[in-house]
């Protein structure tokens, strides 16, 4: 009936869905490759900067 209202509701739903889709993906378990990569980068730093 009220087209404007319906459109606003749709937009709100879209925002919520995007937010939730994004959040769900962001909360997935992070693959091991990234933890290994970060560990490796850190090791390289420590190797090249020596102690300190």
């Amino acid at each position, binding site marked *: 009936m009220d087209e404007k209202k319906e*459109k606003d509701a*749709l*937009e709100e*739903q*879209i*925002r*919520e*869905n*995007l*937010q*939730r*889709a*994004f*959040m*769900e*993906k*962001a*909360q*997935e378990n*992070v*693959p091991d*490759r*990234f*933890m290994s*990569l*970060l560990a490796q*980068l*850190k090791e390289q*730093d*420590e190797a090249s900067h020596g*102690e*300190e």
Partner: protein
Amino acid sequence: MVKNNEPKDPQDPREEIVTHLGPMRAFALSLTRNGAEADDLVQESLVKAWKNLDSFTPGTNMQAWLFTILRNSFYSSRRKVAREVSDPDGIAAGALAEKPAHDGRLAMNDFMAAFQNLPVEQREALSLVGASGFSYEEAADMCGVAVGTIKSRVNRGRARLVELLQSEGVDFGDMTDRVTEAVVNAAGRSGGVAA
């Protein structure tokens, strides 16, 4: 830096990076529309971020800084490859041509298909402002464009989604519970869409 198990230094930005991995993967997926490419992009961005940690100002928003590196990497490799052009409307229309059954799962697939068929600038703007909660100003900074440009990308993207979904008579009521599944499905099959 003697032992691996010494207490982590909360001031060390290197320790903070790990907390942004999830959002980086989500943002990368919204740009690439392909799970494998998204993770490659995250990997590339992490290496760049690590090498350029000097350019991060402690106390500022690290997620914004990482996202900026990520989107710059995305656009520069995309420019090199020059294989993905903004989607012509025809593709979006085609993807939605099949009449969905009145079933939440198909409706969600349609939602994600519609999102994935938006031009990349609109996907980016909606991901930053709509999904990640950055302000228009922050998003404009990150993308190196005017605030008005971001606003118009968000508005056009949202309007296009409304239009596509209304024309399909998608029932949003069932949709919210199916989002995860749809994102996973979308990630799994988007190789086909992008190819």
